[in-house]
């Protein structure tokens, strides 16, 4: 087990290195120059040159990359060109926000998705199945930004039940924090719930017809135990893969949802950074989210291990 984890972590290192190299090169392919983007509507050539000098943008590309990599290995991800905030402190600021949103969204997705998938698999072909499928498909097909704006217009503007947007740290006020997070979490959660429901349903359907379920039934176990303990547990393996990958994705930021609810998370950070050609921020955040994604994959494998006894053998 430990060997497995260490091996996986060692494989992660070259992957991360390749990610940084790729992000660095992709940025160079982007048209537009960071100094120029920083100068904005007042593009004084003398100032642009001064900015280039100040941020070493005139150095050869491999030198720039080496500088960045060496500093990154020492834990220094550089500073934002746009507002001079250290990239690490930007990540530290945004991480709890994104993490909280991702956890809430995932909880909503898991509860709705697994329950609906289970019901529609057990009652396959019934009205329940049909209803759950319609809900799942709507969850997947309705664009997040549209659902977000509709929720704001109905719940905040029309009824005044919840604040329309913004963010308060749970340390300042947990109640206010939840009031602000619930709508974005529902928007993100319902979209993922649809995917989860479809996966749970198909995995459950094949599990229901598997030999071990027939054996369990033959042993005279109650239908409840057969379904929840035998069928669902096995059916969860692909759902867990899906869930951890979706969670990893949520951690790299839900751009549109964050934009609509003006939540200061990773999505907004990275999109603004790309548009402003704020390279240090883009590199830092991608390196970080890449690491998170790799860890999520590792977590998925560990969960398989726990769920599926055959892997432990």
């Amino acid at each position, binding site marked *: 087990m430990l060997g497995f984890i260490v091996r996986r972590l060692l494989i992660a290192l070259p992957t991360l290195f390749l990610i940084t190299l790729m992000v660095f090169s992709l940025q160079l392919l982007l048209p537009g120059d960071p100094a120029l983007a920083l100068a904005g509507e007042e593009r004084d050539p003398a100032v642009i040159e001064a*900015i280039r000098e100040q941020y070493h943008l005139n150095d050869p590309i491999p030198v720039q990359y080496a500088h960045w990599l060496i500093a990154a290995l020492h834990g220094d991800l550089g500073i934002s060109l746009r507002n001079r905030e250290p990239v690490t402190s930007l990540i530290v600021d945004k991480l709890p926000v994104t993490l909280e949103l991702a956890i809430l969204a995932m909880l909503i997705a898991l509860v709705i998705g697994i329950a609906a998938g289970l019901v529609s698999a057990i009652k396959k072909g019934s009205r329940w199945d049909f209803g759950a499928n319609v809900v799942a498909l709507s969850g997947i097909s309705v664009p997040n930004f549209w659902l977000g704006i509709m929720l704001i217009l109905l719940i905040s503007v029309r009824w005044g039940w919840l604040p329309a947007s913004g963010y308060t740290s749970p340390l300042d006020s947990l109640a206010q924090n939840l009031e602000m997070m619930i709508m974005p979490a529902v928007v993100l959660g319902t979209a993922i719930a649809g995917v989860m429901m479809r996966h749970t349903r198909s995995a459950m359907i094949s599990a229901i017809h598997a030999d071990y379920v027939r054996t369990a039934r033959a042993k005279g176990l109650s239908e409840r135990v057969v379904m929840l303990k035998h069928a669902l547990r096995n059916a969860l393996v692909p759902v867990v893969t899906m869930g951890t990958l979706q969670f990893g994705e949520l951690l790299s930021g839900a751009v549109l949802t964050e934009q609509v609810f003006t939540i200061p998370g990773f999505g907004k950070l990275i999109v603004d950074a790309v548009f402003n050609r704020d390279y240090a921020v883009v590199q830092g955040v991608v390196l970080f989210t890449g690491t998170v994604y790799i860890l999520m994959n590792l977590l998925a494998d560990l969960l398989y291990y726990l769920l599926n006894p055959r892997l432990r053998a």
Partner: protein
Amino acid sequence: MSLSFKRCGLILAGTAALFTKVAIAQTLTIGLAEDPDMLDPDRGRSYVGRVVFTGMCDKLIDVGAKLDLVPQLATQWSWNDDQTVLTMNLRQGVQFQDGTPFDADAVKYNLERSLNLPDSNRKNEISAIDHIEVVDAHTVKLYLKSPFAPLLAALSDRAGMMISPTAAEKEGADFSRHPVCSGPFEFDQRVAQDKIVLKQFPEYWNKDAIHLDEVVYRPIPDATVRLANLQAGQLDIIDRAATADLERIRGDSDLKLESAVSLGYSGITINIDHGPQADNLLGQDPRVREAFELAIDRSIINQVAFDGEFTPDNQPLSPDSPYHLDRPLPARDVEHAKALLKEAGVDHVDVELMVTNNPDSMRVAQIIQSMVGEAGFNVKITASEFASMLDRYSSGDFQAGLLSWSGRADPDGNLYAFLACDGTLNDGKYCNSDLDSQLKVARRSNDMAERQKAYTAVGDILLEDRPILYLYHPNWFWGLSSRVHGFKPYPDGMIRLEDVSLD
């Protein structure tokens, strides 16, 4: 039972305390269209940054509602006879938010910082200053290399914003993270892309005019979301309400709408002489540019793209400016346009029009494309995001592009950089020596009549040469909650917080 009574009592007391607090603390929340860049007046480059500075940093001179220059930190100013020495008397008893006194030394420090910081964006605006003399604690003299009339307007913008020399020295390059000025509100905290919080500065020299305890600026890029937040009560003022939303604001009894014609403009910049891309009929033949203009109907653009809420115009200066020319908008005349193309020896012209990929610009570009199409112009629209577009403008890699400028109080700020032969933002490399010399005459004179004459000549040359086809002046629209009182709209788009209060 007694426990639940006790609990009820506590809850009631808590609620009462909360309400008392709400009634006392006056926090104004403003929704901005973008997240400001660096909060350092010398390094700041964005329009929204200027909005935040207005709450935090006083300037030597302020701009009035009629574009007149009014005292702020300088109470009086005067020029010597040959207009090369500007003497400014400074307000007494003013201090910066860190307690440093505001005096002539601080002014000298600030102007020298604007001139000497390597990445100062203010250098060009005040480069006419040769040196600064501290006459006494409350008088400074600015010695110019040569007369430069736009200087006063520059001192009414970021170049005239005074920051605490103590804080600037202490923070160095990181000043923008903890800015200290002398304005009505002091910096409290900033969470990137979330909010900027300012708190009332208790020692402000004009504190009788300040009725708010706190101001929070929140960047919300989407105009619909901004409005929804205003309607839901999360915001008290929104900046740049979308023209499509104005009817909703007007129809909502809980909201108010304020507006002003902006100092800026939107127009089509044409590549006249910047690299090989200039080598096309639109860039080379003034008749073709005239034909292009004749095929456009500016009021249709305004009606279709902006619900008739903007101000169509064919000039760079706002109609509120005393230098705006009284010239009629040309009527659309497709036949004349076709005839001009014929005169130029062609029946159709291919043009690539570059636009920023936002819905408004795209709409304007499409309307233009269909209108000029009738006269024989095949317009290909290329949309790209802002940073890529800037790159193409700066390197001359464009034929024509839809560009906007936020505008400045002095006419020079809308003209020189874009049209003078050595202009720093002259992307099309247009150069006309007559226009150049008139721009320089206007720069050298503080006499209104003389400047008016020069700018009339400039305006007429522009209407003839058409290096930029000016289309309209955007209007500023602010949506306000009906709780907000005392808000005054200004053509520079800044949100001044003096006299603003909340119910």
